[in-house]
């Protein structure tokens, strides 16, 4: 019996047809997957379901009733809860307040704080999420914030729950918490729409699946029995991809990046590691393990308390990203919204912002060159956009991520490239393109650091993995030592004995 029905949904933005005539049904008590390339229209569909955007044509029915709500609040009152792709939290409020935002428990307008905190503590515990409800959200790491978002979905009583890439910066352990929660919800008979670029998850979780391509319905599977990964990939990207990782070996050269005893405010324990020329080093860990913070310290985004970083033997000035870039080290941050995109500026400007110093004589722009650079990376990374002049905030999440990556790939004279969750929200097709680029860069002698919460990814593309746990580098493994359980074990805080760091 179909409980949630989409019929003929169509949505256009200026210059973009985001959805055209999408129709499909979802059963009660089913987890329904939604997949598709970046910019295929998944988030748009979800945004329409949430009442945040309005379709140009078509309708949504829940339990047979046409939904004609005009805002997120209406949608909520109709039993629809949506967790959006971009984190939607208020940094200055506490975790509990964020969870209850829009529906505070109150008597005569006065918030019943004690009840609220008790309630949240209890529910977070039940859900297996370990976050202090009295903490302000601004003090949480990205991954922790994502867990807060997830808590939102399970805390409230809803008929339909839509999750837009909820695991994009979670490692498998935290994802597992989410999956347990989803299983529970499924058992309660809720309808769940689940957007993800991770195929494993889709197979682990979903009962049925819809694939979108270019805003159109590319495939609909009532059941996933007998459906193969390759088939879905082909439906999504219109071609076959045999091995997304496509790893190929190369000789590591001399040490390029040497990090010694670096510590900072959020990373009290000094950390040391190095990266050789032509080497791709992966950093794995659970959320809050301190990987991002370590990279920010190395790059100089945050002030260092101690330690030193050198590239090819030359000391890098600490605490100054500008100097770091000039000495050949760049960081593509995990938080694209806060640290990446220049709001209100075009794709072209977002790509050129750093690299243009190489082709701007006397501070004057070389507009031809800027267009060239922008077009090159739009093409190479398959950014889906009507024009390079498009405001970056109008792009889909994955496409924004590609533009930010493009900014750093366009940079010249890079010796060490650090990418933090580089494929966060990026589709399978584009992922393999990005890996290919990383290999090429490594082959040209660059040292590369990949921070990722996706274990298959680090295992798939790295030559060496460093595992971080509770702010310390807990283990190091060479490619021939890669083994899922060993890596996970090292990442877990209760395993006290660090394995011998390789080489």
């Amino acid at each position: 019996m179909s409980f949630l029905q989409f019929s003929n949904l169509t949505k256009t933005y200026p210059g973009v047809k985001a959805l055209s005539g999408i129709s499909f049904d979802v059963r009660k008590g089913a987890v329904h997957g939604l997949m598709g390339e970046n910019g295929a229209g998944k988030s748009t569909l979800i945004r329409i379901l949430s009442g945040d955007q309005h379709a140009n044509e078509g309708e949504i029915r829940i339990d047979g009733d046409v939904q004609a709500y005009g805002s997120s609040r209406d949608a909520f009152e109709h039993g629809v809860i949506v967790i959006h792709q971009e984190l939607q939290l208020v940094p200055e409020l506490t975790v509990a307040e964020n969870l209850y935002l829009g529906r505070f428990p109150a008597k005569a307008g006065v918030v019943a704080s004690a009840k609220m905190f008790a309630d949240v503590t209890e529910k977070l515990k039940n859900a297996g999420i370990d976050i202090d409800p009295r903490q302000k959200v601004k003090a949480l790491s990205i991954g922790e914030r994502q867990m807060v978002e997830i808590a939102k979905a399970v805390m409230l009583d809803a008929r339909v729950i839509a999750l837009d890439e909820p695991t994009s910066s979670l490692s498998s352990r935290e994802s597992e918490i989410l999956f347990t929660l989803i299983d529970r919800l499924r058992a309660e008979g809720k309808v769940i729409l689940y957007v993800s670029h991770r195929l494993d998850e889709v197979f682990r979780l979903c009962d049925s699946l819809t694939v979108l391509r270019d805003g159109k319905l590319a495939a609909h599977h009532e059941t996933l029995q007998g459906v193969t990964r390759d088939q879905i990939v082909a439906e999504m990207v219109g071609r076959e991809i045999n091995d997304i990782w496509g790893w190929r070996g190369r000789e590591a050269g001399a040490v390029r990046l040497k990090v010694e005893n670096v510590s900072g405010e959020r990373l009290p324990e000094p950390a040391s590691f190095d990266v050789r020329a032509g080497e791709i080093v992966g950093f794995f860990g659970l959320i809050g393990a301190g990987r991002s913070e370590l990279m920010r310290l190395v790059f100089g985004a945050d002030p260092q308390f101690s330690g030193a970083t050198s590239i090819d033997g030359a000391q890098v000035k600490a605490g100054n990203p500008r100097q770091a870039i000039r000495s050949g080290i760049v960081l593509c941050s995990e938080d694209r919204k806060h640290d990446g995109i220049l709001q209100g500026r075009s794709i072209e400007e977002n790509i050129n912002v750093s690299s243009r110093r190489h082709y701007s004589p006397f501070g004057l722009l070389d507009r031809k060159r800027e267009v060239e650079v922008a077009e090159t990376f739009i093409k190479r990374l398959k950014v889906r956009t009507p024009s390079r002049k498009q405001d970056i905030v109008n792009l889909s999440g994955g496409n924004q991520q590609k533009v930010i990556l493009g900014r750093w790939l366009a940079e010249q004279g890079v010796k060490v490239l650090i990418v933090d969750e580089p494929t966060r929200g990026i589709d399978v097709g584009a992922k393999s393109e990005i890996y290919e680029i990383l290999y090429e860069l490594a082959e040209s002698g660059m040292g590369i650091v990949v921070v990722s919460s996706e274990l298959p990814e680090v295992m798939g593309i790295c030559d060496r993995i460093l595992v971080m746990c509770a702010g310390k580098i807990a283990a190091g493994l060479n490619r021939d030592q890669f083994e899922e359980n060993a890596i996970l074990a090292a990442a877990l805080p209760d395993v006290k004995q660090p394995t011998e760091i390789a080489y």
Partner: protein
Amino acid sequence: MTNQLKKILLGDQGIVLIFIVAFTIVALLVPNFLTERNMLGLLQSVVTVGIVACTMMFCLAARDFDLSVGSTAAFTGMVAVMASNTTGSILVGIGAALLCGAFVGFVNGFVIAKFRINALITTLATMQIVRGLALISSDGRAIGINDPGFYQLALSKLFGIPTPVWILAGLFVIFGFVLNRTVFGKNTLAIGGNPEASRLAGVNVDKTRIWIFALQGVVCAVAGILLASRITSGQPNAAVGLELSVISACVLGGVSLAGGRATMAGVIVGVMIMGIAENVMNLMNIPAFYQYIVRGLILLLAVMLDNLRSSAFIRR
């Protein structure tokens, strides 16, 4: 536990600490400052700014901006005087002024929230329009209060403290409570902190913003009525430039112009710092032209100290 202590001293409310230190120094150094009479005079002199700062705090916390407060205070003061003169009832006058204030505020809020027009431009426009109304309705002249009972609003005292000061204190308590303990206050902070997230979480952003501006209007009317009572007439030129004083007091008190951050204690301190600065400059007979310079330096010093304090905290 020392950490806990540090947090209180150096945390959000740190400007309070600076204030206490500064107050002590001033009290010791400036003769005639810490007399009962001067303290009462000081408190009365900050009534207008203080009252309006209560709601301006909400306005700024929600990432909005209101330039029309001075005009509204002047206009509602006129309305109170005119209405009570015509009807012979002070209560009717006060009621009319509060209504007019609420109306101006509501219009501001409605235009800003519903038509999505920049708050700066909207309130700049209403600032002009309302000032024009005040001037037109009185033909540009001050209007005297007929019923001496009206003066009593400002002159009467309770336990030796003038009524306006009690009203100010009451508003501080009320709005402090509203900001921290009510859904309305939390929603205000949420809207300022992340408008998009608040909207998606189902906060009625438009309604909240309209309410904030309407409240601001009412509170301006309270200030306007007290001001009229204090100067025993409605003056169309009153309270010019009030907006800048109020906004600076708020920002000085740690309210972020980028929204999402505000504390009542901070705002009170901001208001008091500005009031004390004026008071002390006059007590010390600083010549008018040098007062400009001193005023500027005090502003700078206050925020710099606050900054030093908080960055020292962060580095730890």
